[in-house]
């Protein structure tokens, strides 16, 4: 049991780290496309690790199944939303940041 | 007082922001958004009255002792759906007003009505 606990703590800590760093990136990155990357990190790596960490602590299999379903849904919708957003922004001509440009 | 009533005060602030938008802003759609803000303040106020410290969701289970009150939740649950239904009617009216007057600003509409 102690192994599971340690694994869970490690996963949760890693997930929390990813989530916060993604949040900082969302605020600090210079343009929309780089921010998509930052937000994508929290949606996939951060969320996945936290949910895995919680999965190791589930009291019953029913809760576990629900966590797995949430992971599946996030894995399907998160990347799709990022892709569609970046694609639409490109089509609408949102400019790309280059070295030396002011931040927007 | 602060420790026990802060939730209510913050929710009152929320309601008043909504009320201000409804009264002051002239755009009919913005008024509807303001109405939503006000509404949410009221919903949260009702729910917070039913909450018990250390309580749990009112779904009975063997290993839980205290539950929050289910009645406010029932009232608000239905009120949310009714709220979105009335929002739809309001939006429908705004759309028809726009089609007739070409604007959704309250003052322009009134002006059009009073000048022959």
């Amino acid at each position, binding site marked *: 049991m102690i192994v599971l606990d340690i694994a869970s703590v490690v996963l949760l800590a890693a997930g929390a780290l990813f989530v916060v760093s993604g949040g900082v990136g969302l605020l600090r990155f210079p343009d929309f496309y780089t921010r998509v990357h930052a937000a994508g990190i929290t949606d996939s790596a951060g969320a996945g690790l936290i949910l895995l960490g919680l999965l190791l602590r589930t009291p019953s299999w029913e809760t576990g199944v629900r966590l797995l379903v949430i992971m599946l849904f996030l894995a399907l919708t998160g990347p799709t*939303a990022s892709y569609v957003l970046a694609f639409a922004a490109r089509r609408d001509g949102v400019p790309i940041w280059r070295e030396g440009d002011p931040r927007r | 007082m602060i420790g026990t009533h802060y939730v209510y005060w913050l929710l009152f602030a929320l309601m008043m922001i909504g009320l201000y938008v409804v009264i002051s802003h002239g755009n009919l759609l913005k008024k509807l958004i303001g109405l939503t803000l006000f509404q949410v303040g009221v919903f949260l106020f009702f729910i917070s009255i039913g909450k018990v410290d250390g309580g749990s969701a009112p779904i009975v289970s063997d290993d*839980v002792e205290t539950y929050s009150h289910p009645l406010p939740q029932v009232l608000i649950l239905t009120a949310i759906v009714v709220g979105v239904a009335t929002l739809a009617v309001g939006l429908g009216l705004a759309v028809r007003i726009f089609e007739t007057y070409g604007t959704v600003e309250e003052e322009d509409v009134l002006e059009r009505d009073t000048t022959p």
Partner: protein
Amino acid sequence: MIVAVMAALLVTMVLALARAFVGPGRYNRILAINMFGTKTVLFVAVAGFLFGRPEFLDIGILYALVNFVAVVAVLRLTHYDDDLADDLADDLADDLADEPATDGEDRA
């Protein structure tokens, strides 16, 4: 540990909120809102474990789903906005006409 994760989530929520307030433009906002949405999914999951009743995770599933609907709706319905140029001209006119009358603080 779960408390620490919860704190991380709240901090991230505030960061995403700041991005949603600042913008600029629709795409930055909807990106921030989408990210906020996934954080609420995690919030529900973590809150369930924190307060000892993790069986209500159905709500998390719903959030993940509804968040996606909102993103699609924003993309689809604001694409319709072919009078965007019109809007901008209008905005400019507004600014010119009203600038002396207002203190300009209502432009967030």
